[in-house]
């Protein structure tokens, strides 16, 4: 079977049945958890300090549950209503938004101490219509520009995704750079076809993790 992002837009692909199948699959749960912990590691937040995070494509809250456990306050956005329904049922702590990240964010500048995204960016590489505003480069540009602005300076965003080619990695990296991000790509298990994981590690400013607590 072809990759999910090639079959239908995410809000269609993840209907009720697929959303619960996805969430209840223990193998998926484990992979998502591993990647969330790895993303948090790469986010490099100061240990033991609270932080306000954005979970991009939060889905049914698999990564959000880990953010809860780790004591982070977070906001999650996703374009699939069925996934958000499951997240509500699972009673995650984060605020949830129905949002198409390709349309950009409206968060005020400097809102978040960091952002993570697990298995989402590949969806932005597929156009949904022939309208010019829905071309992948257009959607990626809007996404990265508004994400950059929503993050504090300095801070990081770590986005794990499944590219199908080096060209896709190139495209995404160059658009992120144009939006003002520094940083680059980290590849875990580069020689294993199955375990290979690509993390886009983006820096706002020098990318140092921002210290959240300041004396009142």
């Amino acid at each position, binding site marked *: 079977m072809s990759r999910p992002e090639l079959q239908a837009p995410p809000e269609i692909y993840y209907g009720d049945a697929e959303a619960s199948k996805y969430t209840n699959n223990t193998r998926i749960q484990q992979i998502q958890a591993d990647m969330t912990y790895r993303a948090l590691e790469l986010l490099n937040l100061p240990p033991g300090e609270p932080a306000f995070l954005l979970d991009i494509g939060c889905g049914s809250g698999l990564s959000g549950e880990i953010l809860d456990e780790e004591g982070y306050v977070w906001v999650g956005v996703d374009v699939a209503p069925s996934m958000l329904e499951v997240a509500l049922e699972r009673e995650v702590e984060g605020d949830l938004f129905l949002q198409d990240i390709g349309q950009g964010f*409206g*968060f005020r500048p400097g809102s978040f101490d960091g952002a993570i995204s697990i298995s989402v960016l590949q969806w932005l590489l597929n156009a949904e219509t022939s309208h010019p505003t829905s071309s992948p480069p257009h959607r990626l540009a809007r996404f990265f520009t508004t994400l950059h602005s929503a993050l504090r300076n300095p801070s990081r965003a770590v986005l794990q995704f499944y590219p199908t080619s080096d060209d896709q990695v190139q495209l995404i990296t160059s658009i992120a750079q144009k939006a003002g991000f520094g940083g680059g790509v980290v590849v875990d298990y580069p020689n294993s076809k199955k375990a290979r994981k690509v993390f886009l590690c983006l820096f706002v400013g020098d990318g140092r993790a921002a210290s959240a607590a300041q004396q009142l």
Partner: protein
Amino acid sequence: MVRLITHNLLACHAKGCTTNNYPLKFSNVKLALREADFNPDFLRGFLPRIEWDALVQASRERCSTTDLLKQLHHVLLETHIDEGSMTCPNCGHVYPISNGIPNMLLAEHEIG
């Protein structure tokens, strides 16, 4: 769930809507209060990010100086908006909130 902490960060993102697009105005809201763990360190770190006028407008509550952090905790992290809508003061776009989830999707002509 939308808490006031998140509403405080939210501006309209419709195409060309760049001034006077904040804060989004609540209407017909159904509020719920849900207890949350008190985390003074988080609040201290968050204080510089708060837009006070917007918060006061949204909460219509005054914080006493005696226990500022406790009050802020209650207003920002325990006050949820479950139903209602948020309207952009500039372009008038209405973001509906249903079952605690705001719908931030834009129409084709509103995408920048």
